[in-house]
């Protein structure tokens, strides 16, 4: 029986990082995951809406939870920022009955919905390792990823209770997965460091330094490629790496792909894109 999840593609899968949504679909099929679209799901707020109004973001995300609950499903997303933000709000609602009642009043009035607290939030990575198992993944590998890979988790989902069976401070799920796909995992320090995505447009100088330090650390440790578990960070690390290098003088040239992409390549999808990536790995860098 296939695993069935209410699917949230992440904030920017429809815009800044469409490759994530595109690679997720064939990947899920190969892994035996049924993706039930959460039609009508909003942005998770990315930690930004709550800066203006915390309860507004809670209400928007409670609507997503109520939708999943009505389907009788747990939520899954390939974006670490979305997983972190949704988990944070879910935790908040579940641990404060008065707050939940207040938000439910709003949901009832505006959408005719109620959330009873009967769903949970999962990142794709934890579903793969905890539910599907690396042995099954290994048996499905068609194109081994024979690169030296730096795995990037970001800070959002590396919180107590948000990261499945992985360790909060010293995770290794992604490293195990990369090894399973045929790659070589690189040991590096910056894998949980923020790249400042929520402040990309407002605090650009700091964000560029954060991004440059992450990219440079991966390069310095001998990585040929960064694989990110976060749609937002994935975009920032790719799009801003030239500018980050100009501002900091650090070496930052390195291909950055999302976990969904590298997995779908390894499992035999998007062969042309994989070939392009191979070329980029050979060409980019110094």
């Amino acid at each position, binding site marked *: 029986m296939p695993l069935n999840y209410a699917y949230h593609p992440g904030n920017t899968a429809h815009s800044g990082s469409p490759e994530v949504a595109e690679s997720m679909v064939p990947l899920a099929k190969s892994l035996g995951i049924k993706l039930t679209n959460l*039609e009508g799901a909003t942005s998770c707020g990315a930690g930004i809406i709550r800066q203006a*109004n*915390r309860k507004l973001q809670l209400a928007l995300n409670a609507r997503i939870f109520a939708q999943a609950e009505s389907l009788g499903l747990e939520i899954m997303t390939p974006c670490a920022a979305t997983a972190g933000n949704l988990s944070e709000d879910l935790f908040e609602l579940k641990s404060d009955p008065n707050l939940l009642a207040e938000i439910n009043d709003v949901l009832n009035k505006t959408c005719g919905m109620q959330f009873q607290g009967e769903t949970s939030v999962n990142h794709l990575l934890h579903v793969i390792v905890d539910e599907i198992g690396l042995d099954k993944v290994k048996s499905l590998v068609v194109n081994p990823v024979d690169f030296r890979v730096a795995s990037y988790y970001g800070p959002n989902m590396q919180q107590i209770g948000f990261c499945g069976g992985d360790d909060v401070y*010293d995770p290794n799920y992604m490293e195990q997965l990369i090894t399973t796909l045929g790659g070589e995992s690189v040991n590096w320090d910056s894998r949980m460091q923020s790249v400042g995505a929520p402040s990309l447009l407002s605090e650009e100088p*700091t964000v560029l330094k954060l991004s440059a330090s992450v990219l440079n650390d991966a390069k310095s440790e001998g990585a040929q490629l960064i694989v990110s578990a976060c749609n937002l960070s994935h975009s920032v690390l790719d799009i801003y790496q030239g500018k980050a290098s100009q501002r900091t003088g650090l070496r930052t040239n390195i291909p950055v792909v999302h976990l969904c992409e590298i997995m779908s390549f390894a499992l035999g999808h998007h062969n042309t894109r994989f070939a392009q990536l191979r070329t980029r790995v050979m060409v980019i860098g110094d």
Partner: protein
Amino acid sequence: MSAVRPLLVLFGSQSGNAEDIASKVGKEASKYGLEAKVKGMDEIQISDLAGQKRIMICCSTWGEGEQPDNAEDLWTSANAEGSPSMVGVNFSVLSLGDSSYDLFCESGKEWDSWFESKGGFRINQRVDCDVDYEAPAKQWMDETLAKMGAVDDSGVFQESLVGDVKNHATGNVASKAESEPKTSDAAVEISTDGDRSMVILFGSQSGNAEGLAAKFAKQSTDYGLDTEVADMDGFDLSSLSSKKRVLIICSTWGEGEQPDNAEELWKKAVSASPGLLTGVNFSVLALGDTSYELFCESGKEWDKKFEELGATRLVDRVDCDVDFDKISQVWAEDALASMAAVDGQGIFHEEMVQAIKESMTSDSTGVSGEDGFIVPDLKSESLDAEISIFRYDPSSSTTGKDTWICSLPGHMSILEILRILKNTQDGSLTYRDGAVDDPTTAITINGRHVLPGNLRLDKAAPIRDGGVSIRIEPLNGFEVIRDLVVDHWALETKREASKPWMVSATRKGLSTPQGAIGSMAPLVASRLHSITDIHSYPILHSSSDATTHSEEYFGPSIISHAWARRNDPRISPIKKKEIESLLDSPNGIKAETDLSSIRRQGKGTIIHDALLNCKTSTLARTGYNGRHGKHVWWYAVTVKSSGRVNDSVLYRQVLGPIGLIGNLFTGVTARMVLGFTRTGGKMINDILALIAPPAGIGKMPRQFNSSIKNHHEVIAIFNEMDGRF
């Protein structure tokens, strides 16, 4: 630890004072579980020192900085070629002298330097005594003996045991003078053995106190406690006298009255004899409603009465208003950890509380702590450990890391490991040493900011394949002085610049029998206290990833403190405005780029929530102006407009034409359009984002985002909760 733990007490004496002190040390040592041999320096060979694990030296100085007569030969042998190494020797020196001489205490200083130069570990700092030596010598003796008592069989100093050894020794003096001298092993261990019982007594009218009692009883099992929940109705007060741990949760009814089920017990308590509850450790959670004049009165009465009856309050009473969930949970976590640190004899081991909390954090999957928790044992099996330490040599400006692969006891603290490595492997290894809870000793282990004296090896990282791998680095966000030592001065300079002091408003005080005093609602006080109750400001500062890359940013420790001050009801309006201008400044809360980094660390949830509220407040005050305000504003507006964030609108509205042109020339636009290293950029969409006209005032372009299904629900939520967007 073995039953016999030898200590060598050496004296070099001219007039007999050093010998007297050495003799006293020898007598006192047994209280610390040590078997002392007192020897004159002329009664021993230098080679005899090499095999020792514990040596205390009392040495006077003679003439112009000379060794006393009975020490001369030993000193000559010590400085001869081929004198033995003192690696593995834990030592401390008491130096006697006379400050009227030029070379004051010179002999003791020489012995102190010699032991260090030979690789010995200075377990306690040398004390130099003038002619009035009794008091400082006594203090040196007590401190050094406690530390020597915490040196285990393998010669490793276990700093976490010092408090227990000291308590044990003090207990012997007070009440067990004739008891066995070598029982410190049992005294220093808190385990699941022995009496772990606890009573949670509830006085409840509406059922809230009863519900909390049941909830916390369930949580208490995670702390290794065996808890009985008891209704105050019909409870036998005298039965508490044999208990070691009691928690009281009591609501208040009507105008400060006890709830119905507590009335009878309260009458008994009022008439009970003082001293009835001696030996009982307790804490009170009071439930109430601030709209009543006598807020939480019943809980306050129980708190006072237990103290009058001789019980010991381990955690201060917390008074809860109607919104009691979070605050009661905070109290429970403190109270349960403290109760868990009461051993089978009823002795409270305060130094264990933090370790218990740390264990709870590292093992649990959430605040509810549903994972099994074991009260930390002081002893555990050896682990294979790979320890990598960041190194920085300022003289050559070189960085790198050194890695050791070794087998170490799992219970050993990281600070103890650093000491061993320094004493036995690399004397140049530099770190801040100090007490287990010294906030300035903070370092980073596998990305987690910790106090190394409080963290056991087996809790420092997940155990994989029977071993642990840890990376030890200096705290980020600070200049590194050498290896793991960072310079806190920049943080202190920022703190000074933030003018963190309180300036109170003149206001009416609360009239009490002791006179008029200022007051604030208990709930407000608890909230503010929770924000500022930070054990290590360097750790909090470091928890933000932005502090490393933004030198001017004040950082979360200063901002959270300022935010708490700003919300203190006692503050003057002028000071409040001054703080708000600091918070609203470019180096204030806006400079924090990602609060999720802070949430991950230690007490992060409370600080995260405080900083988020601070940000919301700043945004409202500054009218969503500037890039920061526009970013938040337009993010919310685009989500309301279609249900999804609209990147192109965000870029245009926040960066403006100049910012967009900047991106064009720095390659950002090209990478955005081409999906440069990614594999699926939609060129046409992204180009459209650049050439589309700017959004009109009050209008939202929808040309890029199709609306989500049931979009009207999203609009309704926005309209219901925040009409600004």
